[in-house]
């Protein structure tokens, strides 16, 4: 478990630290390097920028579980939560030229499962590593 300051500069270091601990899953290096790295980065960005609303006094907790068949990350902020169902689809023509709004979309596209708690301030990401799945979740669903 990691507890991070609410500082976006800490995201890169935290993600690198987690990725080093995932190094044992080397058979799935590419999937981890793209899907999990970006999924986790997006969850941390959302927690710091929107959940904790950039408040430097708040913190973000990261819990990572590595098993043979899957990697799970739970990211929890200290914000009031939000309704993830209301986030618009960034791939719709009217939204393509908007600079923001792709974080949750990327999490959902790149991870095998994304679950928010009822309060909306904690997200659990699951990446499955079993044989036979596509290297890139995006490649499988696109």
């Amino acid at each position, binding site marked *: 478990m990691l507890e991070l300051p609410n500082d*976006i*500069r800490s*995201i*890169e270091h935290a993600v690198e630290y987690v990725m080093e601990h995932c190094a044992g899953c080397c058979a799935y290096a*590419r999937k981890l*390097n*793209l899907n999990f*790295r*970006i999924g986790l*980065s*997006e969850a941390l*960005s959302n927690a710091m*920028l929107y959940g904790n609303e950039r408040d430097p006094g708040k913190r973000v907790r990261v819990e990572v579980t590595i098993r043979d068949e899957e990697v799970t990350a739970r990211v929890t902020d200290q914000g009031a939560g939000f309704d993830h169902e209301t986030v618009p689809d*960034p*791939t719709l023509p009217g939204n*393509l*030229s*908007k*600079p*923001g709004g*792709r*974080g949750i*979309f*990327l999490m959902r*596209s*790149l991870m095998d499962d994304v679950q928010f708690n009822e309060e909306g301030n904690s997200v659990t990401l699951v990446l499955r590593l079993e044989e036979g799945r596509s290297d*890139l979740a*995006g*490649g499988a669903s*696109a």
Partner: protein
Amino acid sequence: MAFQVSKSGEVTVIDVEGQLIVGNRQELKQKVLEELEKGELRFVVDFSNTGYIDSSGLGVLVSLSKKIREQGGELRLASLNEDLRTLFELTKLDTLFKIADSREEALTGL
């Protein structure tokens, strides 16, 4: 240094070293806007040495492309590896940008 700015004729080329992410997107934005203020209008962002891009990195490219177009210029992207190209395809941003396989191809006709 995450971003190296150079010139190729009248085109400003920016090499992204490492990542383009929430923690450094403002640095890229500032560098491009400085060039735009100097009157530069043609830009290529080269991703030959880029590991990954997050949604904030994609967002800053969208924002810069819009600003450059408003000034009558153009921003092209070059040398995306397979993973980065997947990100652009997933988000459908491959339809918004001109993406070249190489820097040379991006510079052609710009």
